[in-house]
């Protein structure tokens, strides 16, 4: 029996990545976001969700693409350390996520066409011929701005 264990994320600019099924908490369509000055180009906006203010991360901009205006936001949760309270953030998406089943046999190298995945991904798997990085959310949201 198949068991979906990952969300496939369309990050825009023909860029895809994945997170675990438990990490994606909520999808926001046409989100109201607010721009903050003096912030990095890849994380310029915040969104309010359940009385929290969350940073909105544009992964493709972090990989060198131009900043985008995404029609969807994925609210994600992660732990810095096992047992700690969860932290939250938002990822820009170009289209709604898709659930997929991934096994260890699909492990592969990170995509080589874009530099910087090694700082954002914890692993990578092959999905229908494409290398799909698995996002390291703690590293993405807890690293100070550059």
């Amino acid at each position, binding site marked *: 029996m198949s068991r979906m264990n990952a969300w496939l994320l369309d990050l825009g600019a023909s860029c895809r990545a994945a997170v675990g099924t438990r990490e994606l908490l909520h999808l926001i369509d046409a989100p109201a976001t*607010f*721009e*903050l*000055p*003096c*912030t*990095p180009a890849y*994380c*310029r906006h*915040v969104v*309010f969700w359940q*009385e*929290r*203010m*969350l*940073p909105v*991360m544009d992964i493709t901009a972090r990989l060198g693409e131009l900043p985008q205006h995404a029609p969807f936001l994925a609210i994600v949760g992660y732990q810095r350390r096992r047992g700690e309270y969860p932290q939250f*953030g938002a990822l820009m998406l170009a289209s709604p996520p898709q659930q997929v089943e991934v096994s260890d046999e699909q492990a592969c190298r990170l995509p080589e066409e874009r530099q910087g995945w090694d700082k954002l991904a914890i692993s990578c798997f092959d999905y229908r011929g494409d290398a799909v990085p698995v996002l390291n959310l703690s590293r*993405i*949201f*807890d*690293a*100070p*701005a*550059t």
Partner: protein
Amino acid sequence: MSAVMSGRLTLADQNQRATGAVLKIDLLDLLIQQGEIRTLESASDVDGSDPEQGSVGWISFAQQRWPVYCLSPQLEVLVSVPSARRTCVLLALEQGYIGVLCDDVTILKQVSGQLYELPVAMRRNDTPIHGVISYNQGIACVSDANRLAAHIGQQIQRS
């Protein structure tokens, strides 16, 4: 001084109340402690002759003149002044004063509500923003006069 407005942001500061002033700079609402504002002047009172590097002129206060800066909504130093910048706010620093041009200023008798720290991923070393509050169906960025002056100084040094 209220901890909310002094730049020492902790969770314990949330929901405390203080008096603030919101400087409107185009789409940006910038919240400063009201006690850091010495005077509000018309932008037409700014003397544009022989400005310091990075400034747009001078404003007189306490028998001296102080540099006036014009900022973009991204808090970048501008050397040409948009027509909407009609007000000059004189901010008190640890040493001296600076003028900052803005579109208008709203005095808040009570700054209340949730204060949010800037998320780690958004914190650049040179940011003068140390928090965000909900304001007017949007947000206001919380700063203070000395951080803003340091941010302006860093930009001028780099240029």
